[in-house]
């Protein structure tokens, strides 16, 4: 056991089992927060060892939504695989498409026109707003406040209408393809998009008074499910979960892609306002602030939207040269990575997908120890898991 393992021991990391105080011996229930449970956001099964109201150990079981997208990638051409990327993180399909398209374009050294890149930024950020709206709404629902859920979904309705006007679909768009964007915007779309941005801005302050600074909500989420920064990094947490723990790491700022370096926006980081740094409240609040930053980015992107083609000249059957690349994109839930190995054929030789929720979920056993049953719901809600990209 080298000094690094000792390094992780002090946070009660489950490297060694059995440090549960043994002489609490009222009846020990093993409880199944089964695949269908209102607060597990999808088909996730968590086995809880509880003693009365106290949860001693929580072990997640995944794999109920496994469709083996990676095996199918080897039998499908590059253009056809963009349809599978929609189904990975079904709440942020635009960002998944963007990730795969960028990885393929980098491997094939395909040059994407400027207008397409700005369109990609606009749609990726709009999808980030929609996904964060779902996350904050469902988190309010987990805590028992039903109303914010309904407000968030009302706002999300406008984003989905914008997407429907642009690419015809509301959830699985496959709008961003290799070489650019499928179609150009319908006329009048930009005006409606600005109207939506002006409509959304005051709404976020409304959610703050309704939920974020609500005394009961703060008591339920502050100091609950605390992930210290180095434990979060050790378990590979990325996105709002990592930034909630105080690590200012955002791929759009650190390793800019698709012209993100041309926009100025801040990276909100959890500062432990209501409790300690890295608790559920921080992760929730970072998502709220990120929505405001996304609005700023979209506004700047809309101003920079130049005319021009939206699709580079890419052959109908894309053939990428032999080679290998690992490319990551900043998704609403974290860094979505594509490890693309190609042998020069029309379909990838091997494609490994690194889902952010897969790593975010892996911290659950380490953090959910000696907490109450209701805290499990708080912790899971704040990690914002989507089972599509955990099970792939």
């Amino acid at each position, binding site marked *: 056991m080298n000094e690094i393992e000792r390094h992780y021991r002090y946070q009660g990391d489950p490297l060694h089992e059995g440090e549960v105080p043994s002489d609490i011996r009222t009846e020990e*229930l093993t*409880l199944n927060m089964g695949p269908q*449970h*209102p*607060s597990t956001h999808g088909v996730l099964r968590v086995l809880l060892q509880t003693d*009365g*109201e106290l949860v001693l150990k929580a072990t997640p079981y995944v794999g109920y939504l496994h469709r083996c997208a990676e095996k199918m990638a080897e039998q499908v051409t590059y253009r056809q695989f963009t349809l599978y990327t929609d189904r990975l993180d079904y709440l942020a399909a635009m960002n998944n498409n963007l990730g795969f398209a960028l990885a393929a374009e980098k491997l094939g050294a395909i040059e994407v026109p400027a207008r397409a890149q700005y369109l990609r930024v606009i749609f990726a950020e709009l999808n980030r707003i929609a996904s964060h709206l779902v996350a904050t709404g469902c988190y*309010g*629902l*987990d*805590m*028992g*406040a*039903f*109303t914010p859920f*309904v*407000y968030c979904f*009302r706002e999300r*309705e*406008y984003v989905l*209408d*914008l997407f429907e*006007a642009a690419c015809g679909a509301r959830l699985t768009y496959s709008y961003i393809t290799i070489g650019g964007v499928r179609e150009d915007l*319908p*006329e*009048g779309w930009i*005006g*409606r998009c600005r*109207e*939506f941005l002006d*409509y959304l801005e005051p709404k976020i302050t409304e959610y703050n008074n*309704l*939920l974020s600074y*609500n005394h*009961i*909500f703060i*008591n*339920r989420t502050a100091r609950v499910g605390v992930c210290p920064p180095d434990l979060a990094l050790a378990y590979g947490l990325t996105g709002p979960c990592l930034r909630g723990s105080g690590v200012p790491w955002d791929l759009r700022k650190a390793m800019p892609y698709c012209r993100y370096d041309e926009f100025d926006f801040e990276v909100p980081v959890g500062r432990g306002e209501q409790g300690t740094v890295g608790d559920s409240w921080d992760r929730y609040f970072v998502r709220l602030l990120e929505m405001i930053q996304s609005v700023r980015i979209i506004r700047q992107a809309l101003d920079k939207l130049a005319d021009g083609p939206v699709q580079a000249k890419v052959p109908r059957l894309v053939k990428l040269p032999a080679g290998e690349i690992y490319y990551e994109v900043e998704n609403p839930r974290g860094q979505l990575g594509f490890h693309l190995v190609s042998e020069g054929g029309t379909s990838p030789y091997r494609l490994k997908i690194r889902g952010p929720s897969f790593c975010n979920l892996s911290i659950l056993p380490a953090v959910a120890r000696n907490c*109450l*049953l*209701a*805290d*499990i*719901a708080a912790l899971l809600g704040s990690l914002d898991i989507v089972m599509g990209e955990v099970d792939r």
Partner: protein
Amino acid sequence: MLVLERPKVEYRGWSLTIVRLATKWGPWALALLLRFAWVIFFAVLVVLTAFVWIVGRFINPLLPWFLRDIVVVVGLLAFACIVAIIGIWAERKVSARIQSRLGPMRSGAWHGWAQSLADGLKFVQKEDLIPHSADQPLFRLAPYVTLVPAFCAYLAIPFGASWVFRDSDVGLLFVLALLAIEVLGVIMAGWASNSKWSLYGAMRAACQLVSYEIPMGLSLLVGVAAVGSLSLIDLGRAQERGWFSWLIFQDPFLFVAFFTYYIASLASCKRSPFDLPEGESELVAGFHTEYSGFRFVMFFFAEYVAMFAVSALATIIFLGGWNAPVAGWSSPWWFVIKSAFLVWVQMWFRWTLPRIRIDQVMHACVKYLLPLTLLLFLGGSAWQLYDNPAHPAFTVFANIVRAVLGLIGLGLVGLYVFGAGYGYYYRQRLVGSMVRKHLPGA
């Protein structure tokens, strides 16, 4: 262009056909009844009195009193059912209004008034299964043990100065005792359905309800100390001299006692921030996870009946039950309006506040509510010691305090009315999605 016309929906279930028939022929029957209402009413009255007079003379002098009690009890049960039905419908409409949606609009003519009826019929025809390993007799008994005390509470609640089934001089304690029995129904349900989740619900319910009975009882006793009698009629009669004679404005301790009582009553009805026993997001559905069909309706019903009963207690003791703000005009309608307002506030809490954790519930009760109510009780009874003609200086001070508190009360009511008006005036007419109507051809 795709034109969406209203889809022809065929209801095949017999329950919904009844609702459709009722809503189709209902208004006609109602109109007929209304036109000849007065005639029918007097006819029934004459027949009844003749029957009672004959029975009284020939069979047994005690019987008319017995009949009167039966009629009153049936009336009370009907009132409780109506309260629950309106409560269920109102809860849906209130939550819709808060969440900027319409709520039930289709079953029944105006604003879906028959929605509770439709729910009831839906639940009646649903199969209510009993889990195999459940404890059969306890499982069947539990809904009744929750429902019966909630209805019995109405026996002791006076609607008007003499409108009460049987006024006993321990009326207040009688209602509190009945609410204590309701805990057993919840525990029985949780234990009998033999599943871990409902066991958690039962455990939580037991802790919460038993521990919140004490602050609830104590804050009521502060009012009783002011009036000196436990009977609800005396409590009501002591507040007959208009707005400033209401107990809530008598002394600052009583003013705070109203709010502690209200919080404790929220917990004892398992409502809003304290709805842990059936915390949906953690416990699936808490103690009534395994119940379906008509048994579930009983739990659902008992909740609304208990909600109104508890608010009725609050109005009688703190807000002067059937007495109007102006001295003379006391009538049962004032009692119903005030209780309905308190029930509306309970619904308002439910759709705005998240749920608190079980250990916070216990901490709130033991560390904050209990000592506070004990202090209030001490202060309230001390205040009563000095607030009598023997200490003229203090009574002058007491009158000033009474006036100030009354003005604060008026201020609060004004604030509420202003807020409601402001909200109504500046509400945003939300028609469909704001974006859709701009799209070409939409």
